């Protein structure tokens, strides 16, 4: 029975010492330990949340970058296309202008040639007429020295007038 009979002395000391230990440990050990643990856990949680947020932000940033890049690419394509069209237009215009200019110049040249030709022809004609008149004058001067022949010619002319 001895071992199952509690002794008053040990109960007394156990109560006193144990309660002192609980109070001392609560003040100097458990409270600082538990608050440090809580603090550490919340700081770890905060760090994790911040990392997540940073990741999200990075993703958003990356998406933004990609969008910007795509926009830039589109812009470049547009500018390139515009430039090509414009240059094509320029070339086309230049070509038409050149053709027109050439045609005009050819026309002008033709005109000049024609004028020159006409002038030349007129001169040739004049010269030919002058020559024939000169030749005819000289022939006439020699012929008219002879009187009967002159009478004969006048007569033939008169005959011709009569017919008209």
């Amino acid at each position, binding site marked *: 029975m001895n071992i199952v009979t509690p002794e008053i*002395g040990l109960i007394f000391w*156990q*109560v006193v010492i144990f309660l002192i*230990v*609980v109070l001392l440990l609560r003040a100097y050990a458990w409270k600082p*330990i538990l608050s*440090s643990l809580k603090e550490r856990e919340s700081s770890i949680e905060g760090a994790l949340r911040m990392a997540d947020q940073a990741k999200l932000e990075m993703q958003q940033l990356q998406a933004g970058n990609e969008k910007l890049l795509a926009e830039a690419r589109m812009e470049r394509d547009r500018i390139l296309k515009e430039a090509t069209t414009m240059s094509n237009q320029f070339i086309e215009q230049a070509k038409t202008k050149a053709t027109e200019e050439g045609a005009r110049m050819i026309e002008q040249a033709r005109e000049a040639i024609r004028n020159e030709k006409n002038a030349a022809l007129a001169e040739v004609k004049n010269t030919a007429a002058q020559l024939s008149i000169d030749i005819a004058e000289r022939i006439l001067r020699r012929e008219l020295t002879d009187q009967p022949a002159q009478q004969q010619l006048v007569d033939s002319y008169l005959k011709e007038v009569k017919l008209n």
Partner: protein
Amino acid sequence: MKRLLFALFCLLSLTARASEPVATTADATESENFNPGEMILHHIGDSHEWHWFTLGETHVTTYLPVIAYRAGSGLSVFSSHELAEGKVHEGLKLEHEHLVSTDGAKVYDFSITKNVATLMIASALLLIVFISVARGYAKRGTAAPRGMQSFFEPLIIFIRDEVAKKSIGPKYERYMPYLLTVFFFIWFSNLLGLLPGGANLTGNIAVTLTLAAITLLITLFSSNKNYWAHIFATPGVPKPLLFIMIPVELIGVVVKPFSLMVRLFANITAGHIVTLSFISLIFIFRNIGIAPISIAFGLFIFFLELLVAILQAYIFTLLTAMYIGGAVEDHHDADYQIGGGDGAAPAQAH
């Protein structure tokens, strides 16, 4: 390193225990027969002096102070050396480690016995260890734990998350100091009891009685109206049956801490008795050949006791937390298995 130390303690413990009965057998061969029952009860009981070992005829003993109060003669304080070997001092003498007065007056014995001394050592150890652990937190702040801090941190977190939060619920923080202290007190005391020459502190009914009584008081003082409603008007029980249910529930209030008391006491005492019994075998058979078997079994029981030391501390803490949890619970859903099973997130609006 720690394992090596434990192994060393274990070996020392066995040799120390073995050496004590050697003297007894030496005496026994001369005068009386070896009585294992008496030897074991002497070893697991309390005593007024701390007997370490006996070499031949020299007893190596630490005499502890005797503090006794008698209604007539008041307080007497003296060394237990004065009472050694049946001597009478100030009208007091020891009868089977029990302090009695020669004139038959009632003696209130408040002596610093072997168990009280062990209690003081365990308490000092707790204070030194955990205040230095707390200092580690103060020094390192939220950085990773080191040394002793990292050894105890998982245990503290385990008690907080797996025991207190799950059993008590959102109000767990108030009870953390008691739960942590009781866990580490029982564990340290159990380990001290396993050291060679160590006292059987947690295997003493007075110690477990006190711890269980503190648990009961905390439970009663933190109980809310649901707790009492459950006792005096158990939900779902017809009115006439309450005449039976109320006494049963009231007995339950006392039986819970009573089971705590008996469980710890019986487990630790049983371990000590089994170890001592295996050692006693050598002296019962009076044959050195039995020693290897005794030591092998003793070693096995010792390692088992190392496990039991922390297991019983855990069980005591867990049950304490569950009793407190039952007293502070806001609703009774858990009783009907309707949710509330997870103590970490209970008592939400229903």
